[in-house]
């Protein structure tokens, strides 16, 4: 039905995931993981699962990002491998 929208979202989703995998700066990785969560929430909503999309947007895009950032500030900011 909205297959163009979903294909665009999928492309951005894969780009965000690859950025999170490859970035040296862990803060960049956390931000792109948050982007990944929000894009997947948009995909869920486009597929009709509004409740799941809401949960994903709130938990993945809001709270887990904050917890990751706190953990990074507690430990180290660059990845070593």
């Amino acid at each position, binding site marked *: 039905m909205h297959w163009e929208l979903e294909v665009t979202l999928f492309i951005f989703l894969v780009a965000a995931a690859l950025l999170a995998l490859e970035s040296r700066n862990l803060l960049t990785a956390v931000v792109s993981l948050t982007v990944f969560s929000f894009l997947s929430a948009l995909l869920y909503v486009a597929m009709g699962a509004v*409740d799941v999309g*809401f949960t994903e947007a*709130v938990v993945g895009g809001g709270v887990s990002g904050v917890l990751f950032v*706190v*953990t990074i500030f*507690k430990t180290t900011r660059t990845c070593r491998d």
Partner: protein
Amino acid sequence: MRDYESDDIVILVSRTLSPFIMLFALYVIFHGHYSPGGGFQGGTMLAAAVILIRLAAGMDIAQLQFPRALGMPLGAVGVLIYFGTGVAAMLGGGSFLDYAYLPLPGAAAALRSLGILFVEVGVGLAVVGILVSIYDDLLESGER
């Protein structure tokens, strides 16, 4: 937090934004019967509003809003509300979590609706308390 300095603009914006996030979270919890949402989502948004103040203004000021010792007891109260709803249905003659037998007046369908409301409030309280508690524990874990 390490290398931390509070900034006036950040505090102003987060102080302005936080009550609206809380209001929308309460709407999500109590309007979950009619629109997408429910206890888990609303509780997480409430915790996000509390954590926003903690991030912007620092732990010392944020203690005035939500004390550190309040998180875990609030979570326990939420879990107890959930289990208490189930046990109240048992006391009313049904099985565990069968809300139609809650000891309240009303038809069975209305009682089920009311039981769902109780349960959502319990889940929301548990989630807000426990998420804020996890944040506090992470933040103070390195200090001595």
